[in-house]
């Protein structure tokens, strides 16, 4: 059963995930209407608390909140007193005193949303914390796959990129495994954390083997600034060996789809001509993000202020 906060996919079970995906399908219908707004969260306040810059996730939550008629307040460190060395929790408590009905948190450090949730009366939705989780991204990825494939059982999902530092990979690994798909992780050895197999995934350092028979190829963004370090010799070498192009895709199933959480580094992890066209569904992912976040807000925002335990 779902708790009061959405901190990670790890805390959800299959029934929870299916419930959210089904709700998202209904929300998608709202988005196709002439008047794309329902009064569900009228008079409720949603706070977007983003300590780390993000355009698409924040915008997506903002649109989702507005379509449900919530008042949406965006709060980001540059425009706040955080620069005056106010601590994260103090900031969150100040916001909480304004009685929001949900707080969406992004922070570069894993575990911050949990810390904030423990301190606040309002439900907290994690919008990405360090290398920990990014649950709504995984939910919209699952939603996109469900729309494309109609099922999860028997599907093979191959996630490619810097697995070690990716909250998207981690949340998707939990989500797709719980829904019954097989998850493969492919990366150069320096980007594959030890022990991923204990989480139910198969790890590959050969891209070709990882792609063999894949139904879904999920390409992660390569953080160029990390490449400066010791993880991989050069961008060009990464693009040559792990970058996805139409030629490498031939190892996958004929009806494979290619996903990417964005923003895309064209010509690095994904070829130029692949990013905008089938089999890539990157723009569908963005579109689906709004419906999925509406479903999440429907499920989590504005619960009565009693916290378990």
């Amino acid at each position, binding site marked *: 059963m779902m708790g009061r906060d959405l901190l990670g996919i790890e805390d959800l079970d299959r029934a929870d995930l299916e419930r959210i995906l089904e709700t998202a399908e209904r929300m998608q219908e709202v988005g196709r209407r002439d008047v794309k707004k329902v009064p569900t969260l009228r008079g409720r306040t949603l706070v977007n608390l983003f300590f780390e810059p993000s355009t698409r996730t924040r915008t997506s939550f903002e649109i989702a909140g507005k379509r449900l008629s919530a008042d949406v307040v965006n709060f980001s460190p540059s425009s706040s007193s955080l620069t005056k060395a106010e601590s994260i929790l103090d900031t969150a408590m100040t916001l909480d005193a304004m009685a929001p009905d949900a707080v969406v948190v992004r922070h570069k450090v894993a575990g911050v949303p949990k810390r904030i949730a423990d301190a606040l009366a309002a439900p907290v939705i994690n919008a990405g914390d360090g290398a920990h989780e990014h649950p709504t991204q995984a939910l919209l990825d699952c939603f996109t796959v469900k729309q494309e494939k109609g099922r999860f059982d028997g599907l093979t999902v191959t996630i490619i990129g810097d697995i070690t530092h990716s909250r998207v990979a981690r949340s998707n690994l939990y989500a797709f495994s719980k829904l019954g798909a097989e998850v493969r992780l492919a990366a150069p050895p320096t980007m594959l954390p030890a022990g991923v197999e204990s989480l139910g995934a198969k790890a590959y350092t050969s891209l070709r083997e990882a792609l063999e028979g894949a139904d879904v190829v999920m390409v992660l963004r390569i953080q160029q600034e990390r490449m400066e370090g010791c993880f991989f010799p050069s961008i060009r070498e990464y693009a040559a060996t792990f970058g996805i192009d139409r030629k490498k895709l031939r190892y996958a199933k004929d009806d494979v789809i290619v996903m990417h959480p964005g923003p895309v580094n064209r010509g690095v992890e994904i070829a130029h001509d692949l990013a905008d066209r089938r089999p890539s569904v990157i723009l569908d992912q963005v579109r689906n993000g709004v419906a999925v976040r509406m479903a999440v807000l429907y499920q989590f925002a504005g619960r*009565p202020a009693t916290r378990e335990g």
Partner: protein
Amino acid sequence: MVLDDVAIRRALVRIAHEIVERNDEIRDLYLVAIPNGGVPLARTIASQVREITGIELPVGILDTTLYRDDLIARGERPPLRRTEMPSAVDDRVVVLVDDVVSTGRTIRAAMDALMDFGRPRGVQLVGLVDRGHRELPIKIDFVGKNIPTQRGERVELRGTSGDLEGALEVVVHGEPEGAAEARA
């Protein structure tokens, strides 16, 4: 059981006739069902109207959950049901179809939802069962059967084989508020 499949069918045939009698421009009518119970009822009414007039009415499905007035306070969120509105509602006479009408709050929600889809020329209401206990000034235009009930009792339209595809029946279950204390 208070209504069996035959009785439900008979009521719907009569309601179809009443709808045809009441409205001059049959072609402007649009049946909009409130799920889940309203859906099979609206389909039956549509097929009856076709038999009487030869006119095929559009049937829409309109979920009211996102328009409820008790959603956030309840804590737990009910599953959403599907909405399918195949035709525009502008300038049409919408006939809302619900299985059991009680407080009128669902109908209020349905009317708000409907207005988000456009501006109907008029709205009429079919209720297979009117069980009373109205809390809002809502009136049923075409009623199948009045079933006086106590608060605490539940009136439900259900399929005899588990889904709403086959034979239907209306049942009353639960017991009036205070009945258990009265026995004790």
